[in-house]
């Protein structure tokens, strides 16, 4: 096969993308332009209604904030674990990798319902808190933003760690030795050598976690309940409960744009961070 015709290898995927992503996306955009739930009047009324409502903007901000908090928590906990991985021998590296992948082997529904048992009023955390005398009454953890971020941090951790560990495992150990040999402290080596070199993995992990946490309907709804309203809940209510597909499409496109902007922002921060470090 000649180099010029190699692009043909991408053809099956490109066709699948066109059929199953671009066409439905086009339909979504088309449906969102209708003003009524029977899809008869083309006047963009749902866009005006949705974006003209201050509540919508609160929901958009909350959704993006949820993604941001989950990204912060998964990177703060995940990065040190990645450093442990970097310093471990091959056998321990395999153990760490297995433990990281383990949660992916169970369904997200199961993991989410397990968090009800952990975060509940009579759950493990509250029993420990009461037993240690840290609070006079059970803490409210379910249906709060911090409870949801705790659960999402565990649920999304594998997709933060997998790109991070794959980049970490390709770092040349000689670079760290050279840095130490030239008199840099461990901290300086971390900030000036390891972090910049592992940044692509961290940025990739952050993007995946952000996109996944902001759209995690099951976890958001089961742990957040109706007290926490995010864009996926509105899409579900409008598409499957009241059958207002134009409004559901508007909410879906709003989510798409919000997540897209968030991911682009993470990529931009990654690029600037890299430029700064080097």
């Amino acid at each position, binding site marked *: 096969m000649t180099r010029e015709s190699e692009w043909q290898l991408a053809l099956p995927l490109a066709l699948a993308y066109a059929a199953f992503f671009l066409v439905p996306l086009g339909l979504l955009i088309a449906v969102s332009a209708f003003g009524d739930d029977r899809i008869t009047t083309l006047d963009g009324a749902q866009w005006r209604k949705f974006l003209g409502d201050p509540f919508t903007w609160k929901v958009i901000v909350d959704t993006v904030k949820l993604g941001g908090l989950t990204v912060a928590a998964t990177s703060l906990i995940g990065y040190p674990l990645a450093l442990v991985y970097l310093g471990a021998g091959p056998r321990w590296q395999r153990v760490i990798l297995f433990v990281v992948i383990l949660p992916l082997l169970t369904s997200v529904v199961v993991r989410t319902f397990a968090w*009800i048992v952990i975060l*509940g*009023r009579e759950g493990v955390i509250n029993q420990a808190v009461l037993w240690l005398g840290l609070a006079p009454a059970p803490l409210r953890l379910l249906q709060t933003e911090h409870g949801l971020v705790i659960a999402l941090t565990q649920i999304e951790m594998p997709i933060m760690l997998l790109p991070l560990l794959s980049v970490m495992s390709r770092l040349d150990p000689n670079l760290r030795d050279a840095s130490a040999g030239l008199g840099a402290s461990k901290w300086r080596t971390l900030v000036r050598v390891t972090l910049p070199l592992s940044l692509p993995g961290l940025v990739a992990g952050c993007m995946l976690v952000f996109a996944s946490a902001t759209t995690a309907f099951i976890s958001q709804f*089961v742990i957040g*309940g*109706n007290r*926490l309203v995010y864009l996926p809940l509105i899409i579900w209510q409008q598409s*499957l409960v009241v*059958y207002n597909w134009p409004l559901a499409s508007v909410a879906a496109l709003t989510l798409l744009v919000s997540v897209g902007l968030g991911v682009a922002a993470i990529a931009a921060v990654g690029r600037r961070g890299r430029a700064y470090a080097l």
Partner: protein
Amino acid sequence: MSHRRSTRREFLAAAAVTLGSLALPRPALAKGSVTAAMYPGTWEEAFRAHVTPALKAAHDVDLEMTPLFAVDQIAKAQASRGAPPFDAFVLDPGPRVTGIERGLFEKFDGKRLGNLARLPTGMTDEYGVTVAAQVVGIGYNPKKLPKPKSWTDLLKDPWVSRLGMTGFQTTYGTVSIIEIAKQFGGSETNVEPFFVEIKKVLPKVAAIGAPASMPALFQQGQCDITYTNTQTVATLRGRDVDIEFVKPESGAVAFFTTMHIARGSRESENAYKYFDTVISAPVQSALMQPPNNFIPVNREVKLAANLPMASLDEMAKFVKHDWSKINPLRAGWIERFNKEVAK
């Protein structure tokens, strides 16, 4: 080069075999089959255990089930435009009305059901047949709370601080909120008094959850009182959860679960046989037993002692709602609920 070509040939041959095997005809079915949408969980398990064998034995028809909630069935049928992904619906009153309005059902002839005479009158119409009843009231934990008397107790101490709520996404949630609103001067079409009252106590409410998570929240002690149906209460009791069903003073709410033939279905003959099997006395009786806990609609079935009525005729006294009036208002109520209860 020749080596490369031969691998490609092998690959193509393997791919052809794989694709070919997918296209092989499926094994021939007995006398035919019917594909029914079915509520996931208790309903699906109970139907697999009792309806599938009964339908096979009586009519030699295979029952295939697609697990879908009522609202999902309407959404799928509507999206498929004339080529329904299943032959039979099972629906609550709200989605049923939507299905009627959007023309998703074949015209139904109740006289074709052999067991029709064993149902109370009014159980079929030109759209479908009633196969089960649901009774909604209050479920509470008697070990943690005194017995509540009325819907208004839900918003008072000590119950309100242990209350678990859902919004207007489900039939039982919607009718319960309507009943609470009525106690404060509202009506079937006016739930404003509910919003006024709930706002006063909102910080105290223990849980406002996703409908699917309510049994788990109750089981985990996150809430100790909630509005629910008798079937959920019986199922939780079967798992040794401390829960009792209470009929509120103003009356428990009853609504019916109905089955319908999807417009454009090619298996309407088998769908009638399926419906007739579901409403037959032996099947209705089996569905009533634990762990299924259905409320039967066949008069020949002797009602279990734990049901909230001694005979089916008593259900006439239960509170009913007109979903053709509720449906148009529901979107607005859901939006309002989001805004009022979201932090």
